[in-house]
């Protein structure tokens, strides 16, 4: 069977890179004494597939992985067992068996939501925050520089920025972002932040921004036409 597990990466684990997280997860899965599945061949590795990588410093409450198991296991028991042995800051939230012949998480997930906190050097009113967001959204295009295997290239992220809301809160600008993610197109929250800063700095200046931006992923989703599903609903 295959389980789809939702987990969170909390404050205590925020400095983990995706590689660190995978290592920690594999060790926890081994400690949980579940009937894990390994690949064939000379150098067998644990079969787990992750929906998406999370950068160092970014927390999340909606991460997903697929875990094949030998034999049938009640999803809740698997969650409990893994939670009993996970290190600080990582937590299983829920799980469902993957029933259909579903493609990999990476292939089906296409929407990511984030909450971003940007410290400001001066307080702003709610109305100002809304104006800023309107300015950002009014831009028909926004190019960012991406470094890939084939060198650098310019990418327009505006089409992949599906939603942007903002409000003022104690010297902070809070953003809620929904962006396209996955193989069809991928916009990073850092790129949206860059777009916001770039747009607003035009009137406010570079000095407007404070340090230590916090990024938190609210979830990963599957958007089909106008409907949005969580990966657990689409198992």
């Amino acid at each position, binding site marked *: 069977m295959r389980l789809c597990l939702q987990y969170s990466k909390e404050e205590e684990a925020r*400095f983990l890179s995706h590689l660190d997280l995978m290592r920690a997860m594999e*060790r926890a899965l081994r400690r949980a004494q579940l009937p894990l599945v390994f690949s064939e061949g000379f150098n067998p590795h644990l079969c787990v597939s992750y929906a998406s990588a999370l950068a160092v410093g970014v927390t999340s409450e909606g991460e997903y992985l697929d875990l094949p198991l030998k034999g049938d296991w009640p999803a809740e028991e698997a969650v409990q067992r893994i939670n009993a042995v996970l290190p600080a800051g990582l937590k299983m939230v829920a799980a469902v068996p993957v029933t259909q012949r579903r493609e990999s998480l990476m292939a089906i997930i296409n929407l990511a939501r984030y909450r971003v906190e940007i410290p400001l050097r001066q307080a702003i009113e709610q109305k100002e925050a809304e104006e800023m967001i309107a300015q950002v959204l009014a831009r028909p295009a926004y190019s960012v520089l991406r470094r890939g295997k084939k060198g650098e290239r310019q990418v327009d992220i505006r089409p992949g920025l599906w939603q942007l809301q903002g409000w003022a809160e104690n010297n902070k600008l809070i953003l809620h972002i929904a962006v396209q993610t996955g193989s069809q197109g991928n916009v990073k929250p850092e790129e949206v932040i860059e777009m916001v800063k770039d747009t607003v700095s035009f009137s406010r200046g570079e000095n407007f921004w404070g340090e230590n931006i916090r990024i938190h992923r609210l979830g990963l989703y599957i958007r089909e036409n106008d409907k949005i599903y969580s990966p657990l609903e689409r198992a």
Partner: protein
Amino acid sequence: MQQLKQVLEEEVLPKVRKPLRYLGNEYNAVRKDWQAVKLRSLFAFPDVYEVGMSHLGLQILYGVVNAEPDYLMERVFAPWPDLEQELRTRAIPLFSLESLRPLADFDCLGFTLQYEMSYTNILNILALGGLPLRAQERGNEAPLVMAGGPCAYNPEPLAEFIDFFVLGEGEEVILEVFAVMAAHRAIRQGKQDKKEVLKELARIRGVYVPSFYEALYDEQGKFQGVKVKEPGAAPRIVKRVVRDLDQAYFPARPIVPYLEVVHDRMMLEVLRGCTRGCRFCQAGFLYRPVRERSKDLLLQQAEKISEHTGHQEISLTSLSTSDYTCVEPLLQEVLNRFEGKNIGVSLPSLRVDSFSVNLAKEVQRVRKTGLTFAPEAGTQRLRDVINKNVTEENLMEVAEAVFQEGWTQIKLYFMLGLPTETLADLDGIAALAAKVLLRGREILREKGSKQRPTVTVSVSSFVPKPHTPFQWEPQDSIALLQEKQKYLRNRIREKGIVYHYHEAEVSFLEAVFAKGDRRLGQALEEAWRLGCRFDGWSEHFRYELWREAFRKTGIVPEEIANQPLTYQDALPWDHLDTGVKKEYLRREREKAYELATTGDCRFAPCSVCGICQDLDVDTRLRKGE
């Protein structure tokens, strides 16, 4: 406290490389209630996290202490220069990993002394923690600073900075030390009277309080020995030994790092000690006698660590694992039990014989890398001098087995500058490597393999170490070592042989600090002030600053490293007793010059080094039990 935590997490750690080095919330890390214990201690490892977390001794002591409800132990590692920079600019004191508390909050700090080149990091940790460097400047309020580990057998260069040293195996003595410190504070409402507590500690066997002793010098400044200054202090301090490894504490729940560390695996310690008797090898004399752990216990321990860590590899560790008398059955059973869970096995230290290659073959079903062996010297004559009982036949047998079994690389360790070395011995290294390569080519050709064999020759420089038969020997000068390195490079011509050597300057400083006396502390402090840190890391090693430090403090390091000592000379470590008699070391040295070898007391008769006679211990092998 809360504020410091916030500043660190919000502002400092996001700016440094690998912030996980400083977090202390790994799986199995212990965070105890500060108020609920009687003694708060901090294990300080004077190197970076990834190195320190690969050290079994840390896991053992951390486990032993935290298993006690009355004590807690946290950790600190040498901060990487980027964090040091951040701490200095913001005037934030260095903090413990588990509770992010400044060093000064603890009752005691314990450094482990694994290699001399970590000494500047010790001073740096103290300084960044806001503690005075010198022991006598730290008053009753400051934590007591202790140190142990192999370099504690000549701790004189650190004598000014450390309050007390502990000789021998830490798990054997640490709780006695803690009990004394805790009781001392208990009757003083949590406070300490430093002089008094040191006196109490000095009564524990294995504890050395350097301030109770005085180093004597003659008019020319020649070292004359160490004399008791404080009435009642023992004239000799004898090391502590675990008698029975089966009874010793074993860390079943070692901390599992988030970061990838140097040795990222479970460590199963199969035996302690080695009596092969290589005359240059300090570990061989410090950790006598050989004590094996029984196979069944090891299997139980493997199950437990595996359950509590989730590691994918078990390492069977010791100074020489092929020497474990039950190694084959142990290996078989470990492989049987863990194969289904896809847990691999590794053998870190292989003897030069085909038996060891067979063991390696068992554990590496996929022949990933090559194998490493240490013939140490290039000719039979020199191998007899150092008592390395390896013959050319042994090595060729190994080469044959390695290439036959499908590896294509072999790495050979040698040492330059060994006593009595001549050019013929260097030629011998080149010739051996060439012979191994040739054999490799033949075998691979016979097998119809398209691959080419590689032989890596890795050469370090001989460092005379205290408590070994070669403790009286001089080290070759840096210039001579470099000349030999160059000579050897020119002798190694074949494509297919890779040649590496260690920086001679580092080996020189190792010899200086291994053999130096108390005066060296000044040079150490000066070097640290000038900015020396992480001297064991070539990217940070600054030899010119060390030269400047010696110049400023009027110390001539060549006199320590490059001059022979006579049997009449007082040695800075004469008052520290490993259990092996000085007479025995002297006899071994004389045998070296007679090209006479000494057998391993596990198989040959006891050669009466003194330890079993004096310390009430014995060699414990498990075969046939």
